[in-house]
């Protein structure tokens, strides 16, 4: 067994925020089964804040602990604050990750960021859509 910190073990044994969100505002998926780890993050946004964060993860103990920690760190933060969560910060919060696990399993922050990007790009489309609607109305 890799030498995992007590914090990693706690988040692995009792992962927080596991699951999916119905009709999420954003979804982010990273990794692939070849390298061993896959994470999907779901977010619900209210007033520019992460009202809810959930995840599903296929992977080792570190991957599951990382996902759990990221969800906990992100929940309640503004989108800008959440986007500043880095793999390094996650590893620090987990009181360290084994060296060989740092890169392959520490994908949680990336998955969360993808979910935020997904939300923002949807917002742009919605905003853009509304803009088009308005222009059409004006032309009429």
């Amino acid at each position: 067994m890799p030498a995992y910190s007590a914090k990693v073990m706690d988040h692995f044994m009792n992962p927080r925020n596991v699951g999916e969100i119905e009709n999420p505002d954003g979804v982010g998926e990273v990794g692939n089964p070849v390298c061993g780890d896959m994470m999907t993050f779901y977010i619900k946004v209210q007033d520019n804040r992460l009202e809810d964060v959930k995840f599903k993860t296929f992977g080792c103990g570190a991957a599951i602990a990382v996902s759990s920690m990221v969800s906990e760190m992100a929940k309640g933060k503004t989108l800008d604050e959440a986007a500043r969560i880095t793999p390094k910060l996650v590893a620090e919060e987990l009181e360290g990750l084994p060296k060989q696990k740092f890169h392959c399993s520490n994908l949680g922050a990336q998955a969360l960021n993808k979910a935020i990007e997904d939300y923002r790009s949807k917002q742009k489309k919605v905003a853009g859509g509304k803009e088009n609607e308005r222009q059409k109305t004006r032309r009429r």
Partner: protein
Amino acid sequence: MIKVYLDNASTTPILPAVKEAMLPYLGEDFGNPSCIHSWGDVAREAVETAREQVAQLIGGNIEEIVFTSSGTESNNFAIKGLALAQQNKGKHVVVSAIEHFSVLHSAKTLEKWGFELTLVPVDKYGVVDPDDVRKSLRKDTVLVSIMHANNEVGTLEPIREIARITREHGVVLHTDAVATAGTVPVDIKDLGVDALSLAGNQFYGPKGAGALWVKRGVRIMPLLDGGVQEGGRRAGTENVPAIVGLGKAAELAKADMTRRTEHIARLRDRLLKELPARIEHVVVTGHPQDRIPGNASFCIEFIEGESMLMLLNSQGVAVTSGSACTSRALLASHVLIAMGLSHEIAQGSLLFSFGIDNTSADVEHVLEVMPPIVERLRQMSPLYSKFIKASKGGK
């Protein structure tokens, strides 16, 4: 807490009788076997007794046994030593794609030294087709090495048939019998091989002692230069206590083999049958029948091996996995990939390996704790939810 050790493929416990036999050589009988005095005599006699015991286990002659530090050293010695000794005849070697890394990486080292290497494939059960070995042989082939049984999936290889082919072509055949010697009957004459590796910590001996049997008349180049220990084939002061332990373990294995095999196979068969019956989407890996008695290997779909190991460990169960995350190299088992399994499925690899100390209660404990562990990880797995959605959508 219940503690269940099901990782005998990694190493077996040391039998009390083996430990007893070793103790004097960690104490008052500390002599160097090369020395010409009474301390040396005692140590030398102990090493020669062990040589006799190991020779008898596999039906070899005592002067054909070289003691090494491990199965890994035996394999390194065989692959490099047998190839280098014959390099004036040719520089082509053949090994299977599922060999232990101590064979595979030794063969790759030979490649760096100017040899050519052919990897023989395996079928979905991990079986080498002797015909593929035949096809791989060339005029300059000097060595073939195919394992007797695979350590991860337990599949037994058709060594007798392969030996017939290599004999016809006058090519030296080595077999890595680390997973079989001391566990199932291994007879070098019956197998027809020219060299064979074994390791004591696979059959209740200590770590730190293995052996390579090399048939009389087959040339091998030493890896370790120095004194003339082991007939000049392996220099270095002998690890006397470990060698004594290996010898004692070999003697006990030979005497008790049938009873051990029956006990171990009975437990293994129950797990092999029951686990896939109790958990959906479980793939049994390795050959359905032709496998070593202690091996029950699976791939549990949609989840990853290391997280299973950790949860099993929290329930007192010790097993191993061939997933990428559990390997230091972060690569999925080359054995499972060579058998044609996808990376995704190979990630869920789990190997239960039984030993003589295991009981029916151990199997029942595993059968009890496994389903909730799998369920828990599947509830977390994006692969599983995709699968469920896809199968619902299909209906």
